[in-house]
């Protein structure tokens, strides 16, 4: 009896997310690979005290980063504007410009949100490690910088490294091009980014796709995330105007 992972609406797929959850949001930053419909459903759900884990976060709305010119950008700043998020763990929370101020910087300045800025390579490797059963690893990145403050260092063959820990989450909201009914996912282009690693690192992985197909509808050579990692799948409406 195949397990049914398909949900009929984005609202249903996120309905049980409780306040206080940690939420990974896939993609890189920008429209491609961002689970925009799941994000909007989570905002509409209204739960608070969320910790958001993302990469480039909340800079599209004020700068247009990664969005086609003719569309109004949507980004992770929505959870700070709505007051739902109290913390973000990310690599790129603010654009170079402060005019206008991004929602995340605004929340940070007003002391409504904690911002934990992690080098991008360390952030993705911490997420990957969580999924891969590796509790900690050493990286050369960040040594001698503010990132190293309060962190354990160790030398290997004459070079200094930082000890970094796995980063888990309660939920991952991710985006793929296609899912089969088992939950295997296919990605396209640069929309991969943080999606495949996040799928492995959360207790519950929820995926937004353009299309759901039968097993075999994804070439076995093109599966980017294994069905084992995927808990819930929601298909977008045909002709959705968002990228």
């Amino acid at each position, binding site marked *: 009896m195949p397990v049914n992972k398909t949900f009929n609406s984005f609202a249903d797929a996120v309905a049980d997310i409780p306040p206080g959850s940690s939420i990974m949001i896939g993609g890189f930053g920008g429209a491609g690979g961002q689970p925009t419909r799941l994000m909007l459903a989570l905002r509409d759900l209204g739960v608070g005290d969320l910790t958001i884990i993302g990469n480039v976060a909340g800079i599209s709305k004020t700068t247009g980063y990664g969005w*086609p010119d003719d569309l109004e950008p949507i980004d992770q700043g929505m959870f700070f504007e709505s007051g739902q998020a109290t913390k973000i763990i990310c690599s790129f929370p603010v654009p170079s410009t402060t005019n206008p101020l991004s929602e995340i910087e605004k929340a940070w300045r007003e002391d409504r949100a904690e911002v934990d800025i992690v080098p*991008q390579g360390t952030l993705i490797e911490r997420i990957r490690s969580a999924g891969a059963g590796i509790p900690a690893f050493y990286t050369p990145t960040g040594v001698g910088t503010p990132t190293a403050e309060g962190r354990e260092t160790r030398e290997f063959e004459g070079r200094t490294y930082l000890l970094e820990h796995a980063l888990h989450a309660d939920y991952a909201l991710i985006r793929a091009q296609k899912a089969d009914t088992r939950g295997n996912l296919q990605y396209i282009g*640069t929309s991969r980014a*943080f999606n495949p690693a996040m799928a492995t690192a959360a207790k519950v992985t929820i995926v937004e796709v353009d299309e759901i197909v039968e097993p075999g509808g994804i070439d076995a050579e093109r599966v980017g995330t294994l069905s084992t990692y995927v808990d819930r799948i929601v298909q977008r409406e045909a002709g959705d105007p968002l990228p």
Partner: protein
Amino acid sequence: MTQNLIDPAPRLDRAAIAKRAARDLVDGSTVNLGIGIPALCADFLPAGVELRYHAENGVLGFEDLAPPGEGDPNLMDAGGKFPRHVPGMAFFDSVESFNLIRGGHIDVTVLGALQVSRNGDLANWMIPKRGIGSIGGAMDLAANARRVLIAMEHTVRGDISKIVNECTFPLTAPACVDEIVTDIAVIEIDRARGRLVLKEVAPGWSFDDVQARTEAELDADGTVGLMA
């Protein structure tokens, strides 16, 4: 350094800085270009030089941007722009992308800077008075690329030198910069000895003119060339 000096000749514009930096990119290299002046290097590659451009978000082998309005949101570069689809590209996820960087497989990265110190420390991610900044891929690139080339303006307003004895801004990575290309000079950093070696000056500029606008002491090995 903050006195208002009269420039002896015009400074190079951003495109000219990028053009000079591009001359140091070796054929066949895997290269990551930062946002701003570094990104312009791609427009000025010497004839016959073919590079593999890497973007942190997961693409290798892209070239120029798609025409306005024709960008594909699923083919983005790390600056949030949309390159054209060209043959020979490869797409991959962020784990793989940072394996490439952290593992030392990027031959050269060209980055911008807020400050560079005499021993090659780089500060380019946060202005202290703002109190918040974005690291992105900069720390991984600066710490791990085989060669780190800085392309930037030599000074900021009031002729404040960006080439300093010690960085006062938060570091991106210590002792990582190999070469600096600015609007008035090309400087190599001999990190082992903490020496800044002036290799070239902009047309109409002298060693002393550049030194007068540089907080850290400059050195020269033999003749100083002309930027072109």
